[in-house]
């Protein structure tokens, strides 16, 4: 699944980023990763916008190149953006939220 961007037809000089999806997001999307073409200087928030509501209703945290990052972070070509739904590692059955 790959979506280009159509901002004024300037899809040629942009950045390509890989988006990693996990758990319920991976199941929703039917893919564990997608590639996005974004305009130069695109931010994490722009990448989320391109995913067309995939993450609606989930309190997401993002990571860029395996470090937690906020939505204002500017993406560079080749960056790996990960959408991280609420985590539940460890042992207990029910994690209080």
């Amino acid at each position, binding site marked *: 699944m790959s979506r280009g961007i159509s901002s004024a037809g300037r899809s040629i000089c942009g950045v390509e980023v890989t988006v*990693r999806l*996990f*758990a*319920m997001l*991976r199941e929703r999307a039917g893919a564990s990763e997608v590639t996005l073409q974004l305009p130069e200087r695109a931010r994490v928030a722009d990448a989320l916008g391109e995913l067309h509501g995939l993450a609606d209703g989930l*309190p997401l*945290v993002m*990571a860029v190149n*395996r470090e*937690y990052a906020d939505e204002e972070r500017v993406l560079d070509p080749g960056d790996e953006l*990960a959408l*991280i*739904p*609420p*985590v*539940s*590692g*460890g*042992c*207990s*059955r*029910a*994690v*209080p*939220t």
Partner: protein
Amino acid sequence: MSDGRRDAAASVRDLPDEVAVAPWVRVTAQPLSLDELTARVRDPRAGAVVTFQGVTRAVERLHYEAYAEMAEERVAAIAAEGLERHGLCAAAVEHRVGEVPLSEPSVVVAVSAPHRGEAFAGAREIIDRVKAEAPIWKKEVEGGDERWVKGTRPR
């Protein structure tokens, strides 16, 4: 005291106060061994070893999924910070992914320290932070039913 024992005592005294030993961290699909993990934190300066196992309870099995590369980096950073903050001698953490049947461990933590106070505190901090910050998810599987466990937002 024999020469051999004197040598051993001298070598312990000669250990530097702070040795920057990188914690052992692994995310694996294999069953976890507490014995192997405990062996990884053996240290001649340590008078206390604390271990923790988180095990599947109340359901047939849990299915764990991880962003493995980032989870290993996050857990390594958490363990290194615990080591530093609590003056631990060594720390080791392993998390299993894939199916973890009832009563088997999904996560194991072992730490060693000169005394039990810092060993308990260090192990407690490491497991609490791993659960809250590592990008790992679990799904309960019971009969034909599956559901993702509601988690916490990292950080």
